[in-house]
């Protein structure tokens, strides 16, 4: 095995660390629903998003008459969601109420594949969405019509400024998601995910909704313009100015130390072995 090949293997392993969010996709969903009541049911999104005022122009109006569960949205909801969230969004011992959560929250959970989960004990994390775009529209529309809540925030990254966006990102987001966006494990066993796979809309939704353990950033904390700036910087972090050679996954000096030993020192030991006699 050449040192180069060895280094490539190590770097490949580290690559999966750095892209930790993608690891989540492999979590099996085969557990039964009949298990015990969740010990760590996530924070009810309804509880936090109630603080989020409806953005101007939102489509949060409560439907005057309850929608019929006959449509595609209703059918999917009753098939996949109602088991934990209740037939009328009222919530059960397995999952929180969805009343008042709105499009911002529900679309985020469905497009990022965080929902549905097969078992309330399962960690809620990013994975490929199981629904088509039309199906998500239908479910989100059904839940919004039935339970109300804020619309998805309007986001325009191009209108944001990169410099202030970076400063706001480092101030509000970098502690958990990392200055480079690599993500970071929280003490509880959950992780704040890497921001490298998120779309602009998902980032804005997460900021406003505060999914999982993430705080809610309401318009009083971050204006729409500031959210635009942060989103622009997050999109920049997905493909940053990476001069200086191969980027070693932007997880700090850890990978640099490994390369110093496995590439630098290994090559030099090889050179020393060639230059020096061994007897």
């Amino acid at each position: 095995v050449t040192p180069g090949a060895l280094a490539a293997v190590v770097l490949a392993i580290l690559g999966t660390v750095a892209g930790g969010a993608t690891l989540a996709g492999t979590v099996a969903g085969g557990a039964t629903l009949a298990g015990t009541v969740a010990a760590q049911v996530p924070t009810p999104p309804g509880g936090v998003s109630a603080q989020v005022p409806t953005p101007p122009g939102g489509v949060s109006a409560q439907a005057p008459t309850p929608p019929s569960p006959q449509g595609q949205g209703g059918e999917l909801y009753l098939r996949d969601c109602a088991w934990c969230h209740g037939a009328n969004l009222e919530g059960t011992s397995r999952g929180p109420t969805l009343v008042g959560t709105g499009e911002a929250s529900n679309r985020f959970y469905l497009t990022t594949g965080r929902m549905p989960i097969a078992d309330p004990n399962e960690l809620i994390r990013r994975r490929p969405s199981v629904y088509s775009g039309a199906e998500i529209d239908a479910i989100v529309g059904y839940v919004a019509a039935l339970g109300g809540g804020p619309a998805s925030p309007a986001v325009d990254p191009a209108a944001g400024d990169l410099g202030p966006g970076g400063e706001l990102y480092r101030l509000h987001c970098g502690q958990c998601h990392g200055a480079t966006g690599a993500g970071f494990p929280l003490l509880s066993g959950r992780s704040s995910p890497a921001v490298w796979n998120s779309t602009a809309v998902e980032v804005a939704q997460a900021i406003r909704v505060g999914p999982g353990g993430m705080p809610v950033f309401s318009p009083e904390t971050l204006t729409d313009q500031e959210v635009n700036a942060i989103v622009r910087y997050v999109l920049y972090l997905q493909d940053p100015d990476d001069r200086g050679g191969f980027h070693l996954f932007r997880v700090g000096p850890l990978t640099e130390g490994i390369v110093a030993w496995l590439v630098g020192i290994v090559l030099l030991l090889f050179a020393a072995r060639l230059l020096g006699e061994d007897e």
Partner: protein
Amino acid sequence: VIAPVARWLDDRVGLGGWARRALNKAFPDHWSFLLGEIAMYCFAVLVATGVFLTLFFQPSAEAVVYSGSYEPLQGVEVTQAYASVLDISFDVRAGLLVRQVHHWAALVFVAAIVLHLLRVFFTGAFRRPREINWMVGVTMLLLAMFSGYTGYSLPSDLLSGAALRIGTAVLQSIPFIGTWSLFLLLGGEFPSPQMIPRLFTFHVLLLPVAIGGLLGVHVAILWHQKHTQFPGGPRTDKNVVGPPLWPAYMARSAGLFCAVAAVVIGLGALFQINPVWLYGPFNPSTTTAPAQPDWYWGWMDGALRTFPNWEFRGLGRMIANPFFPGVLLPALTFLGLYAWPFLEARLTGDRSEHQLLDRPRDHPVRSGIGAGVVAFYTLLTVAGVNDTIARLLDQPVFRVTGALRVAILVVPVLIGLLTWRALAAVKDAPPTPAATVERGGG
């Protein structure tokens, strides 16, 4: 041309005889004797690249609005130091390459020192008469670590700030003198405006001059005492067998210098290191994660991360928690390193002169202790990335930290005992026959 000049010089300073003896000096030959030389040549690269960097680096905490060519930070208020590192990285010709070569050379430098130290330890090269040179070497390791730390802290990016915050907190934890030492060092509370200029003085003047001076002492003592050699062949305690300095050994050494330069320049060209523009400028109110020190401080970071949250009251004071993993452990570590030659002489009662090296397998106890100690510090270094391990294993950080605590205490003992027993078995075994007779199968 050379001959007349040499003769002219010899007529006036009369070094011809000395030079002839020097050039004929024998150097024993083994690839593991080149580890220290790798470190020495890394130091040469560090000085050369470091001089280049001082031409452009501004050691100042003065706030400026960045206006260089890196767009995402344009208009952001940063320190002059950070702005000048961005200039080196984006606007100075070859600046980023030199900066990266400097940093890579530093990582390889300390790694080579550690390997050299292990070679000297496991072969018993520190024994009489070489105790002084052992202590000089240990001092250079310490100075190299502080050179790395001050260099890491200079760019005034988020990682620099975090490292300084941890380092100053550790310093403050020393009972009685901690707070005053910090004020003396920083000229005030953390973060002080004098922090960067003072670190700069240490990094570019005091530490490298001390390392350079001790390097001279190290080589001079080696020259005077002559190099050790492995037993076997014509080699005895009374002679030195090896190629002469000129031309064989010098050619070899020049080749090694080229290899060191090629490897660290290659690393600097191919692998990004410390992208400070992505970490952002230091701001005491924020931080980044995942974050680690450079690898050779990892063991101390790991100790800080895994040490239980104990605090003690003694002498009428609270002895703060970071004191134990951050001050006491490193102090004992280096005390142990300094004292080892004398400790071993006392334990074995062997105070005689040694010019021949031991093979590690012939000293099961020493090799067992060495293997256990290496395992201990390796595991502490691993504990310095407990968060990344937790993420890799999909486990809570607390659980990983708990497992590491047990491993740090248990595994080194097991490895030490295993090494000791295995080597003792090899040593006590009857010599294997030079050839075995294979019985015909048909």
